[in-house]
């Protein structure tokens, strides 16, 4: 009897909590059913007769980045007169959930599939099924690296190496004198903090930054620049002597505490500048510097240290507004979403499309962050 009572109490408490949640989110939740509705409706209406149905599966949903991608896709769908569904797993480590989502999408026989794969290998079978069924797949964001032959028609993505190179160019402007003044006796460091050495987009940014920085530094310190840290990028200087060290640190996991730990470690080496390659490492850097206030130009503990971030988010924007961060690179999430749908429609219409469409990136700082062209790409 008592047991039954306890079961009821537990159930009631849980329900009431869930109910609170539902009630509180009444407004934003209307967005979710709206996207879910066409998904359930799609199989009922045969594709050829109505609008073509394009399934979009992203790498996430939680980062506001994906919401901006979704906005681009929605606009493209409205303009090009197609039906879309936009889904993504709750976190970027949920490979299994993404596989389930792709399976569910394929069961609805979409005209095309837009995909940002978390892990290509685990989707191999599904991609092969797309080839067999003649469903064109368009990659977006980090795309689908090393896909089965013939499955990926085109990819809409930021050229991450170019984005990393932009960061290196911007940083070099402020550290050029210090780099020139470095000697073998008094070497200097330039640091990159990154995540997950296997994710193509983040690896690309790291590589782009390291290569460009190496090139720039070699111009003023020929033969004396070395790349150290993570072994994927490590490279000894050509003369054997080192005056400039470009150090790559990869956080132990994608959690904010682990990113913070990596940033703390980097800050202790007194680098000339730090590049954080994604929003996770930016969060880590903010946590390691008291929300960025330790980087304050007048009073901060690291007042002479330029830090360049990636993407946006309210805390990064705040840090840039206050000049704590030197600036950041933003991708164009809106264009990523827009171009993905646009490319899918072009393929469906039999048009020829390039293998990769660069959706661009922009450097922003406290000077230009309010320009309309930039502001629309930034999110709180």
């Amino acid at each position: 009897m008592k047991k039954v009572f306890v079961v009821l109490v537990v159930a009631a408490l849980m329900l009431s909590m869930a109910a609170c949640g539902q009630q509180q989110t009444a407004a934003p939740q209307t967005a979710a059913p709206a996207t879910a509705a066409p998904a359930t409706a799609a199989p009922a209406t045969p594709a050829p007769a109505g609008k073509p149905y394009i399934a979009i599966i992203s790498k996430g949903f939680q980062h506001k980045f994906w919401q901006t991608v979704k906005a681009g896709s929605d606009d493209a769908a409205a303009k090009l007169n197609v039906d879309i569904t936009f889904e993504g797993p709750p976190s970027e480590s949920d490979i299994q959930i993404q596989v389930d989502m792709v399976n569910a999408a394929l069961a609805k026989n979409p005209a095309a599939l837009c995909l940002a794969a978390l892990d290509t290998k685990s989707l191999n079978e599904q991609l092969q099924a797309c080839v067999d069924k003649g469903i064109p797949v368009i990659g977006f964001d980090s795309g689908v690296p090393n896909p089965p032959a013939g499955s990926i028609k085109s990819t809409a993505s930021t050229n991450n190496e170019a984005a990393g190179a932009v960061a290196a160019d911007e940083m070099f402007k402020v550290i050029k004198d210090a780099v020139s003044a470095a000697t073998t006796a008094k070497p200097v460091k330039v640091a990159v903090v990154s995540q997950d050495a296997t994710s193509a987009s983040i690896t690309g940014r790291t590589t782009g930054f390291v290569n460009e920085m190496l090139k720039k530094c070699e111009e003023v310190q020929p033969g004396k620049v070395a790349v150290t840290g993570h072994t994927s990028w490590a490279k000894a200087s050509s003369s054997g002597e080192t005056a400039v060290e470009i150090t790559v640190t990869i956080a132990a996991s994608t959690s904010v505490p682990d990113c913070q730990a990596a940033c703390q470690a980097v800050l202790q080496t007194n680098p000339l500048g730090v590049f954080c390659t994604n929003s996770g490492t930016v969060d880590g850097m903010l946590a390691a510097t008291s929300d960025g206030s330790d980087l304050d130009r007048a009073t901060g503990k690291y007042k002479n240290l330029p830090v360049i971030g990636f993407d946006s988010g309210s805390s990064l924007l705040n840090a840039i507004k206050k000049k704590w961060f030197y600036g950041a690179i933003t991708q164009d999430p809106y264009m990523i979403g827009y171009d993905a749908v646009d490319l899918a429609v072009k393929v469906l219409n039999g048009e020829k499309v390039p293998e990769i469409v660069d959706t661009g990136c922009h450097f922003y700082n406290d000077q230009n962050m309010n320009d309309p062209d930039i502001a629309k790409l930034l999110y709180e």
Partner: protein
Amino acid sequence: MEVKKDYLSTRKQFDKTKLLAPAFMVVLFVIGLFQSGFTFIVNSLDASYFIGYMAIGVTFVIITAGIDLSLGTNLICAAIIGGYAYNALHLPMVWCLLIVVAIGTTLGFLNGLMVAYLKLPPFIATLGMMMIGMGLGAIVTNVTTERYPTFGSPGAEFKTIFYKTTADSPLGAGIPLGAFWLSLFFIISMVLLNKTKFGRYTYAIGSNIEAARLSGIKTRPWLTAVYTFCGFCSGLAGVMYAAVYTSIIPSTGNGFELLGIAGAVIGGTSLMGGLGTIPGTMIGVFIMSFLKQVLFGWGFQPHVQTFISGIVVILAVLLDQWRIKQSTKVRKV
């Protein structure tokens, strides 16, 4: 005569082994100080606040021979709903922080009901709660990252109280006040575990729940109270997490509980129940965070540091088992 002498010498040996973990912590601390001085202390503290609260809470639960796997996601769930209350519902920060603690406590209470009254194995009950916490946070926020106000913005005063001071504080900038609160909570929970009925019953339940029941302890309400306290700790950990890390990402947090459990276990808390102390747990937590900083100071990449932390956990438990063996040997004599 001979026996007594033998007893004494073994006894002495036992005390020495007890000092191994604190000694290891001190060694790491000294190395760290030489590497980077005050920064070392601040960095170690920053990274261990939320782990400290979780570890204290889970120590109580592990002493009852239970486990709480839901700590990590509960803290994120509590913190993210608090952030939602601030960002979307525009409640005053004080209310939001109270919500964080209340949600942590409620989830802990539910764990307690399931374990004590429904007789679910703690592993299963809290495993389920882990998923519930993760899902609940994501449902309420509609899977969006909630960011707490940053230093200097309105609403961020709680950071200067619970985390560290800013330049405009009368104490000066960068004083890690979080250490004060953690020490305070450390003392309170030590008193709770050693000097109160609650603490004595916690040990009694862990040593032998049936014996405890037969000796007149109402084991079910007390066991529920232990899990509720652990939930309360995860709420406090949520507040500290929000203060230090600002960004609360939905559907994260699983794995954090293991940091707390590792701290407790390194500190000599036995998963078989009945054994464990709060100072031991704190030593365990700081061994982990000092080790992390020291390895960074030596220039190891982060993944190597995780690897070495794993070895330390295993060695610590092996050492502990050996120590207990020694002490039971004494009893045989």
